[in-house]
């Protein structure tokens, strides 16, 4: 799924960064977002859960155009903003979460989810290192995007990771006779109510032709 150059970019970033793991997601919209690299399954899960739910530190970081630092996920006041996200990642070996928007000037082209297995804020020098490293990542991803767009492939993969989610959205729109945004919201709600991730539920809809109830439960 992940191309070698994006993986190398991610590994180089992580080697310099005082982190346990990280994930890069391109795109700033709620729907059109692609996780192009994750250092490990925990980092991937952090990105995926946020996409499934539409909430979490990365979502907030993109919307607010600023980094979001959660120094201790077990501190009750720090995760209040994202109650469902907090609950869904509670089983993961994550104690601190940092989300940085990938900025180019005033534009946000994506977001980086970072985590640590130990709680605590990043030091001033940690933060400087992270921001510098992410500037390099952003410029590289953008340059490679410029090259890749001509070939119709984006950094990270040759096909859409979340294709099945968008296919399922289209199917639901027809089956439920609703608009695409409503179908996507229904898909998210259905995944959440079953405690499953969006991709798994979508795969069920696409391959098994599972049909949702016309009215939300």
């Amino acid at each position, binding site marked *: 799924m992940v191309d070698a150059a994006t993986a190398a970019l991610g590994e180089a970033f992580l080697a310099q960064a005082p982190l346990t793991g990280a994930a890069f997601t391109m795109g700033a919209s709620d729907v059109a977002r692609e996780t192009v690299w994750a250092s490990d399954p925990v980092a991937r899960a952090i990105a995926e859960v946020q996409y499934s739910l539409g909430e979490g530190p990365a979502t907030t970081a993109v919307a607010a155009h600023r980094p979001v630092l959660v120094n201790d996920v077990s501190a009750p006041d720090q995760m209040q903003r994202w109650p469902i996200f907090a609950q869904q990642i509670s089983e993961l070996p994550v104690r601190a979460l940092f989300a940085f928007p990938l900025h180019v000037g005033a534009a946000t082209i994506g977001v980086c989810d970072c985590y640590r297995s130990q709680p605590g804020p990043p030091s001033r020098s940690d933060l400087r290192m992270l921001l510098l490293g992410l500037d390099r990542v952003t410029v590289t991803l953008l340059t490679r995007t410029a090259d890749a767009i001509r070939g119709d492939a984006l950094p990270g993969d040759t096909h*859409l990771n979340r294709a099945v989610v968008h296919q399922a959205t*289209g199917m639901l729109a027809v089956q439920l006779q609703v608009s695409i945004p409503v179908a996507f919201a229904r898909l998210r709600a259905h995944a959440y109510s079953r405690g499953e991730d969006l991709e798994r539920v979508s795969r069920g809809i696409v391959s098994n032709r599972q049909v949702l109830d016309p009215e939300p439960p």
Partner: protein
Amino acid sequence: MSWPPRPSALGCSSFQLQSDQGPCLDCYRTGQPVNVPDLRHQMERWPMFVPAALEQGYTAVHAVPLRLRGEVLGALNLFSTRTGALSPSSLSLARALADGASIAILYDQAAQRRDLVIEQLEGALTSRVVIEQAKGMLAATGDLSMDVAFARLRGYARRNQAHLTAVARDLAEGTIDPQSVLEVPGKPHDSAG
């Protein structure tokens, strides 16, 4: 082509572009400075530009190329209401201003290219999402596999000489009916694209 210190100087500069003649264009084309200490002697060289400049009260014009290494990016025009050559110190100031302007123009071009890439990135992400959504709609409507749904989508776009993304967007936004995309004229059971 130059920053206008007075509205009339902007008028003179744009007049050169409109009439396709004048010291600024000569400077831009040759990459060499053009010094005109007295415009009244250049009526034959620029028969349309000179009267226009004189009318604005200008009697001397100096043009300095904006260059990056070998490439000429533009020209800096200096208009004067007094006749006479530029002093060496004024000339070196003009060159410094021209270099500063060249750098600013290059940065602006780089920023525009960057903005274009950001736009393309957003477009590429969104169009891929919309195509997958449209495939899902067609698959559900015709009880088709995703591959067949894509072939039908592409076939419809080809028959109607439309972009794949545009058809997908119309489907996703509900402006065309999935059923009409699935109808293959003359070949009701054809699933190839």
